[in-house]
């Protein structure tokens, strides 16, 4: 299909810089997700790729060709909007036909393409309906159909699932992923929902304030977040953060004293220079182990238990007053006000320096559990 390359892309409105130099290369057939909180610039970046926004500086290349100055349709892209942006005055068939008509595709060919797409998306019975007569999920499918029918080199999705209810969102997620596998088209997908990012992406791009914080596969981001921001953003429930001080360090490990006085050993390299410095210890709720342990122990009192069925979240007040969330299996017999002890597995802990940058960890892949 097509590669997309961004070379120090910048966007300035009046005096404000929204996108502060983004470099990124997207492989053919890759499913890339831009994720970040609202206002991080992810939608703007997508719209710059689409050609709906000017690129203030930098180069945008599609298949190696600079397309900065091309109109959207000339770039060979199709986009699915958050609000679907279907043409309300046209029926489903006409919605899909509009782009083909503008491209002067012959009538017979148009019909053939639209019918094929309608079959794929199970829209055959709705071709005569106006968008106003369709449900949210059907409208979503029409929007996707309108994009597919033009056979674009790259698909752009701007938060396409955010207007759907939770159950439909899950279903559409699967449909989109399946569709991508079948079409094999390069896809750029914007969302603020890290679950969508984790489940669908080949590659996630985490953005904040117009800057790329980290690029990597979902598991890379989960296992080795490069900084506090990414660590906070990826994973649900979010990672616990505890302030502490480095009291000893080797090449591979660091010993951190928490505010409560407990000492925790963390697998993290390059902490030798940080002895005495303030750091942040991060540990995901699903990695905290309940029960007695020899090392890396902690204790506290349960304030609240959220039973989710398959899992339970314990909100534990530690002795120093910090709040810790622990995820356990659903059948755990712990109640509010119970005292619990737990431990932090050294190889599962993350360490961030005072600037919020993660300390290097030995292996970057998935670690054995």
């Amino acid at each position, binding site marked *: 299909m097509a590669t997309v390359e961004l070379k120090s892309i910048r966007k300035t409105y009046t005096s404000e810089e*929204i996108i502060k130099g983004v470099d990124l290369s997207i492989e053919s057939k890759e499913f890339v997700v831009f994720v970040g909180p*609202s206002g991080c610039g992810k939608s703007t970046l997508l*719209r710059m790729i689409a050609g709906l*926004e000017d690129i203030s500086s930098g180069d945008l290349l599609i298949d190696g060709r600079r397309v900065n100055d091309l109109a959207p349709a000339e770039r060979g892209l199709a986009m699915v909007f958050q609000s679907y942006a279907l043409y309300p005055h046209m029926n489903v068939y006409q919605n899909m036909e509009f782009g083909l008509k503008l491209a002067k595709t012959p009538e017979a060919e148009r019909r053939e393409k639209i019918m094929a797409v309608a079959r794929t998306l199970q829209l055959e019975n709705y071709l005569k309906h106006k968008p106003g007569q369709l449900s949210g999920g059907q409208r979503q499918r029409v929007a996707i159909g309108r994009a597919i029918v033009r056979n674009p080199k790259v698909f752009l999705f701007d938060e396409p699932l955010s207007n759907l209810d939770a159950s439909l969102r899950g279903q559409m997620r699967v449909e989109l992923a399946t569709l991508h596998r079948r079409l094999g088209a390069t896809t750029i997908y914007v969302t603020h929902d890290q679950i969508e990012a984790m489940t669908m992406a080949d590659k996630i791009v985490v953005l904040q304030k117009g800057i790329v914080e980290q690029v990597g596969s979902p598991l890379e981001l989960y296992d080795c977040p490069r900084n506090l921001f990414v660590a906070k953003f990826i994973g649900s429930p979010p990672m616990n953060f505890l302030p502490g001080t480095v009291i000893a360090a080797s090449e591979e490990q660091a010993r951190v004293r928490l505010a409560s006085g407990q000492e925790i050993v963390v697998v993290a390299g390059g902490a030798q220079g940080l002895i005495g410095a303030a750091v942040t210890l991060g540990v995901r709720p699903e990695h905290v182990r309940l029960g007695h342990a020899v090392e890396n122990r902690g204790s506290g009192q349960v304030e609240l238990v959220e039973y989710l069925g398959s899992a339970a979240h314990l909100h534990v007040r530690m002795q120093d007053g910090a709040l810790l969330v622990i995820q356990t299996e659903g059948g755990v017999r712990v109640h509010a006000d119970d005292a619990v002890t737990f431990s932090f597995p050294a190889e599962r802990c993350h360490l961030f320096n005072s600037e919020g940058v993660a300390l290097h960890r030995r292996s970057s892949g998935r670690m054995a559990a």
Partner: protein
Amino acid sequence: MSAVTTASQHHRKAAIGAGASGALMLAPAVFVLLVWSVVPLVLTLWYSFQNYNLVDPTLHGFAGVNNYWYLLSDPDFLQSLLNTAILVIGVLVISVGGGTLLAVLYDQEFVGRGVARVLVISPFFVMPTVSALLWKNLMLHPIYGVYSWMMRAVGLTPIDWLQRFPMLTVMMIVAWEWLPFAVLILLTAVQSLDAEQKEAALLDGAGPVARFFHIVLPHLSRAIAVVIMIETIYLLTIFAEIMVTTAGGPGVASTNLAYLIYSRALLQFDVGGASAGGVIAIVIANIAAAFLVRAVARHLEV
């Protein structure tokens, strides 16, 4: 929510090539309006300093401030200013005051409310010359008018309204045209009042009067400002009603500024004098509108 709006505002500003093609599409309308608003203005100003009479070609040349001097020292002019003020202020009071009350009245649920509303706003859609003749002949004619018949029916002597109280009568006719406008606007505004807000006030124990002054009236303030602004513009230039009913008379008893300028220009052919009157009308309109436009402009969603 606010993040979404700022994003979409950014998007609005950001379309490719916005500056050039936007200006190109705006240009014709702006050009036309610019010509329309500037050329006549400059000409009026120019004529107002000239000796210029359409039927007396010997009279020409620079007049200095003479046209203004004659106009300002003319008792007819002062009478016309007074009449203009009576007309504008009288109709504003009737239409805004009455309009507010009627808006609240027709906001209530009652049998046939929809039809009653339509009847009330109808006079606004009647052209001024028809309104004026309707009242002058069918309603107020001293012999055949319905009102005269009603007065006779209760034993009174019919009054020739347009002769006895010309300005007052013209004012009532104009108010009949503009009260419906105020009702139309204010009723729409009342209906946009949040029902929950009214219910909350009800739960807080506010009576009808308290609700009117503390909930309804503040909510209407913007619409009232709009009504005052728009009516002022039109009322300053009331012309057809006067021409058709009294022709400014008897004497100049019902001559307003607009009618005075008309009679100077098109009946006496005194272009210079009429233009001086025009300049004064523009100045008055601008003074009147300046603070109103500003008040309204703050409310306009741009």
